[in-house]
């Protein structure tokens, strides 16, 4: 513009100058945004790496555990076999009773009544139930015998299965059933 000219254009106001300055500062600050983003990203990548490392470690641990489990599965199999076999054998073992023990129990319980009672048979059924049959002089004696059998803890489910009075012989015939406790 020639020197002699008068500049009629208005100068920037203080406000406009301040705004321009603010914009300049904003520009400078905004330049940090990508840097900030990169820093955050790098931080996240590091954190992710750490978590991933832990995941890898856990996977290796689990793999090791699985291998150990496989190696030790034979013990599980042995235990399972024993558990099953014992379960299967339990009802059979419960029937494993020496008849002499049963004879002794009966004799022991009847010893005080040997003058008034007599025995003529012993039986065992396939469900494990024992019984003995005999003769008694009176019903009263028989009821005492039954009570004594019921008090015996080695016997359970004691029942007077049959009872009959023979008028000609004046004798009571009876049959007592029970189970012998094993296991």
């Amino acid at each position, binding site marked *: 513009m020639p020197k002699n000219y008068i500049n009629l254009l208005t100068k920037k106001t203080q406000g406009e100058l301040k705004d321009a300055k603010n*914009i300049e500062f904003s520009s400078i600050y905004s330049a940090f945004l990508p840097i900030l983003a990169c820093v955050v990203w790098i931080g996240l990548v590091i954190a992710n790496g750490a978590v991933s490392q832990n*995941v890898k470690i856990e996977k290796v641990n689990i793999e090791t555990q699985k291998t150990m489990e496989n190696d030790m599965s034979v013990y599980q199999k042995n235990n*399972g076999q024993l558990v099953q076999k014992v379960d299967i*054998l339990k009802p059979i073992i419960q029937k494993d009773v*020496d*008849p002499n023990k049963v004879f002794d129990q009966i004799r022991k319980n009847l010893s005080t009544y040997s003058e008034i009672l007599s025995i003529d048979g012993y039986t065992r059924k396939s469900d494990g139930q024992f019984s003995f049959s005999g003769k008694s002089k009176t019903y009263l004696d028989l009821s005492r015998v039954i009570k004594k059998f019921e008090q015996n803890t080695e016997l359970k489910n004691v029942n007077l299965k049959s009872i009959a009075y023979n008028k000609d012989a004046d004798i009571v015939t009876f049959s007592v059933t029970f189970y012998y406790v094993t296991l």
Partner: protein
Amino acid sequence: MELADRDLKIADDVSGSIKKSTKKDFVDVLKQYSIPLISVSLFLGVAIISIFPTATSIFDNYKQLDKLKASEKTNQDTLDKLTTLKERDAQTISDLATIDQIVPSEKTKIVGLQQFIQDKTKQYNLDLKEMTIGEQLQKVSDGTSTTKTSKVATVDAQGNPIKNTEDSLRVAPTTAKIEGKFADIQSFFSDFYKVNDLYIITTMNLKSSTSISPNQITTSDAKWSLDITFSKYAFSEDFLTNSVAFTKIPISSVPDSTVLKYLRDRYTK
């Protein structure tokens, strides 16, 4: 005229100057906002392309890590139980050997009681009236062979059905009719229970020709007649070869201690 021309020229210059100024302002504004725009764009770009996927990946990995840790804990519990089983495996094998000795496989030749009964009846002056040796194994029909299936999964890890092991036992019955004195029959039973093998007296019918006082039974000369059935049990081949069922028993399961104690006391020599 000169003045008018000069004014006109000034006006043209001002007008040109205003136009230039407007263009310059626009460039300035563009310059001023370009950095923030680029910065924000870069920030958003980095955020969308890198930060969000990485953050998502972290959350996924955390979730996976939690699952893996839970799985590791479960596995550790299993390993602890397996270690306990390993520690008592020697006893388990010993118990299994005892069971296999008294309850063999159905393929094993079952040695009957024939010789024992013949020898002992002779030894105790008993009269062996009749004997039927059970060498033919039969299915057990009284329900004793039923396995507790509730403890066993019905399918294996691959989803294949596990064989049912309900027919796990076979039985070979031996029947005999013996006559003799009560004391001799007692001696026979006494020796029978010393045999290191599992024979169950399934049925028995011991009858006397006369009624005898309890205190005189063992001393009486009265003849007793004994009808007896001994049962020898064997595990079915189907059961023994079904090893998948054994591994499906929970690790925490323990064999019935009372049965084990009985077996150890009676059959472990």
